């Protein structure tokens, strides 16, 4: 009896979890379901369910080129940022973790100091810098700063991971004729993979959801990323609520899929080994 009740947990726990999940998930559900309704349905009964279900809002959005172009821009930014952060972050962390040089403490402190400057604080001078470099209205103008601002966290996460690789492994590889850079590429990087994935996911989701930087850098609508697109779509079609909801729902789906595929990595990475 007590064993069963222990396994099932107490009813209060279920009740509270249910309320919590409702609070967290209902707004997202409202957006997704709202996309399957018509405007007159939404006006008559704002909190109702689709009746009948209409797919035309979703089909309209998917048939147009706008959504796909903005999704492509977002993907380019997210992949470019992730690749840059992972490659540059791994290289710099490797130098800090496994070489001995006088200024390495200073270099680590230099990168760590970046945590003090969130992009919100730096955005105005950053915009001027990017403008002076001629990178306004280019995706590179979004990708390069995103890499720079993701580097501190990346280096803080990766340095201890790379440091933890046993010295004996490296010595064995050197004796076998590998160079230190060869050891880095062939042994250290694969061994650091779990850390690399955590860092990569953080960079990807951060870039995919980024708003402030693209808002400053991209004024050409052909280069809009999804967050900018969602905002301009919502103001352009402000009377066509159903279509806005469909557009918003579609642009939320890639991040949700990406998250649910790698959920164990992200949540697992944060919570450590999850039992039961």
């Amino acid at each position, binding site marked *: 009896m007590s064993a069963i009740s222990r396994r099932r947990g107490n009813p209060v726990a279920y009740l509270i979890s249910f309320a919590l999940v409702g609070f967290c998930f209902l707004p997202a559900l409202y957006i997704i379901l709202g996309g399957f309704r018509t405007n007159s349905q939404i006006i008559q009964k704002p909190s109702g369910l689709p009746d009948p279900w209409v797919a035309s809002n979703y089909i309209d959005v998917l048939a147009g080129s706008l959504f796909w172009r903005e999704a492509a821009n977002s993907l380019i930014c997210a992949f470019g940022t992730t690749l840059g952060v992972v490659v540059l972050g791994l290289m710099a962390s490797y130098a800090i973790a496994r070489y001995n040089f006088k200024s390495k403490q200073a270099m680590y402190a230099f990168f760590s100091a970046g945590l003090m400057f969130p992009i919100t604080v730096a955005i105005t001078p950053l*915009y001027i810098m990017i403008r002076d470099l001629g990178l306004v209205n280019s995706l590179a103008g979004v990708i390069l700063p995103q890499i720079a601002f993701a580097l501190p966290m990346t280096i803080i996460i990766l340095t201890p991971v790379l440091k933890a690789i046993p010295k004996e492994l490296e010595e064995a590889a050197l004796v076998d004729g590998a160079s230190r850079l060869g050891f880095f590429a062939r042994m250290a990087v694969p061994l650091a993979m779990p850390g690399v994935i955590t860092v990569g996911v953080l960079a990807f989701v951060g870039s995919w959801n980024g708003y402030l930087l693209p808002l400053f850098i991209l004024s050409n609508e052909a280069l809009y990323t999804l967050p900018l697109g969602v905002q301009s779509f919502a103001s352009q079609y402000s009377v066509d609520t159903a279509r806005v909801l469909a557009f918003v729902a579609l642009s939320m789906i890639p991040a949700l899929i990406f998250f649910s595929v790698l959920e164990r990595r992200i949540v697992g990475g944060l919570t450590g080994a999850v039992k039961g």
Partner: protein
Amino acid sequence: MTVFPAAGIAAARHGRRGAGNRWHERAEIAVLSLPALVIFATFVIIPVVMAAYYGFFNWRGYGPPANFVGLRNYQLILADPAFQAALGHNAFILVLSLVTQGPVAIAVALLLNQRMRGRSIVRVLVFVPYVISEVIAGTGWSLILQTQGALNDLLREAGISQAAIDWLTNPQLAIWTLMLIIMWKYLGFAVIIMLSGLQGIPEELREAAAIDRASYWQIQRHVVLPLLAPTIRIWAFLSIIGSLQVFDLVYIVWGQYLAQSAGTSTMATYMVVNGRNAGSYGFGNAVAVVIFLISLVVALAYQRFALRRDTDGALTEGAK
């Protein structure tokens, strides 16, 4: 050609004291670290330093800044009632996030740390708002919260309130609405952090306390909470810094004009509206410096009084 690798190995065997080898090692360090250093310095450090410089000028953003005004921008900012109001809103968000999200997240984490069915699904769903971008969350919520929107309709259906509540523009209410959205967006993150902390507390401690006939609440109060304190302090630090930087949600839901009249403006929206949007780049840079200094002071104070014990190792460990 075959001599060089052999010599390299010999040098490696003799330790790394050879002059050629040391040069080689320096070259490797440079190749590895320079790209990251250059990108980081160009896009993070130099702009931040330049902000301090531009902040002393009255500058429209074109050509080199020429109209030096000294501390005038800073005087204007600190004397501007709109900035003071924004600062007040940031402070309100900061305090209220700590006192609402913290206890709720701890309670939920304690709950989810028990054995129950569907726990992993609950964990994923609680985390969903954190993954959704601020723009999407803001757009969705601003539709839900319209006077003729879904929330008022739901309250009417449930017989709770017949009134068409003005969630967004009523200055008495708007900041609480913002708190609701912030709670929705970031509660899951707090829960996950707390859960990770709880998972680090050995089950044996709780069992030992239970054998000594401590009640459930006594165990939570005297065993679990003290051990969770480092996690709570780290979360609080992240929450404080986040609260001082709030921008996206306010800018999306309220836009640049409404935020001020509805009483939800923040230092960051003030910076964007009065800096870039007004074409006053010198002024905008000065606001950036003010936000940075306020964040720095708060962060250092917090570090000094609460966080020191926890990060002593964590932040410096990597380079040792």
